[in-house]
């Protein structure tokens, strides 16, 4: 149940790579690592979920909280490399209509 979070900055955005399972146990760790990234104005964050094997509603909540914080500071959130299962989760909850999910 380990979560690995890798962050780096390029000129345009902060890129985050997450690997592991995001559930009620690991979500707090994810939130603690991601929320500070949304503090400044106009922050652009791209998160790759390629190696995320499980995401439940607590994990979704972290992304929702991050999205709201970014929006408040006129920032942007983009999620990329979602598996079909994860994509479905964002579609059913309607979150794919408000958070940018890239299709490749």
């Amino acid at each position, binding site marked *: 149940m380990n979560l690995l979070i890798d962050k780096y900055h390029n000129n345009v955005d902060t890129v985050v790579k997450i690997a592991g399972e995001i559930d009620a146990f690991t979500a707090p760790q994810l939130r603690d690592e991601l929320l500070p990234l949304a503090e400044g104005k106009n922050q652009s964050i791209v998160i790759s979920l390629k190696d995320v094997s499980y995401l*439940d*509603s*607590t994990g979704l*909540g972290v992304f*929702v*909280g991050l999205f709201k914080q970014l929006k408040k500071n006129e920032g942007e959130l983009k999620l990329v490399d979602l598996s079909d299962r994860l994509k479905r989760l964002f579609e059913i*909850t*309607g979150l794919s209509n408000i958070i940018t999910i890239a299709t490749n």
Partner: protein
Amino acid sequence: MDFKDMFQSKYRSILYSYLKESTEAALYQGQKFSRKAMEHQISPEEIINVHCTALKELFPDLPQEVFASCDFLLEVMMDYGLAYQEHQSLRDQQLEIRSEIEIAASVQDNLLETKIPQIDVLDIGAISIPAKQMNGDYYRFVQDKQLISIAVADVIGKGIPAALCMSMIKYAMDSLLESRVHPQHVLENLNRVVENNVDSSMFITMLYGIYDSYEHTFTYASAGHEPGFYYQSSKDTFSDILAKGLVLGVDPNASYHQYEKKVEPGDMIVLLSDGVTESRTEEGFIERSVITDFIRKYQHLPAQEMVENIYRDLERIQNFEIRDDFTLIILKRKV
């Protein structure tokens, strides 16, 4: 003689009888003594002290080094003693918390209790089992003449925070006079209440519908809830109840689409929470068809027996370890 003296002399006599004849009976006396000592919260290093004092009394001619080694052992055991005390205190705290949770869980059960409507044209079954002590899933039936309103909701997170959120939903719905209000407006209303009151990473999924038992129509709207199933008796097929809508609590201005289905005799409406569809076996997540297979298996039974049997089967394939709150509701239009 005070407690300490009694304790000391009792230990000495048990030790002495064991040394004289190493019998099972004597060892057993030692065990009983140990249990009594723990009841009186005697620490490990106090036991060592008692033992060494007894040695001194029984065998005063032992080499000095033996008694010196006792002092050494006592010193080494100090940390064990501290750890033991901390353990006792944590255990007490845990017992207290557990009993508070039990009280909270039973208050929740009372507050959120909902009766399954008894109506001659519908057979309704419902089951909701929490993964922990408090349930983050919620279902509610309200009957108003021929209209039956049904709500199924799932609060994100588990345990106490989820359950508290659920109470808020219940009271918000109470104040709505739901059956007069269209499902899409119920969700729009609730969405505003939730968004105003929960923390930024919480949200709630809900499916809300009204069954008209005169017209046999089911009118519903969904806020990001896990799709249920519709069984069409004439074709003997299952389809997904797809309804689009944003989860409650994210965007205060969200609007919801409403859908209507005509229900024929023999048809079934299956509503559930993601604790059902997110069941996992060793091979991974189950396919939705596993659930419809189970529904078919028990289709001939009354709705309440259906949901109970399906729950037991899904529990079994997960080795009796359900990870999320499990809610399953089946409505059958009687033939």
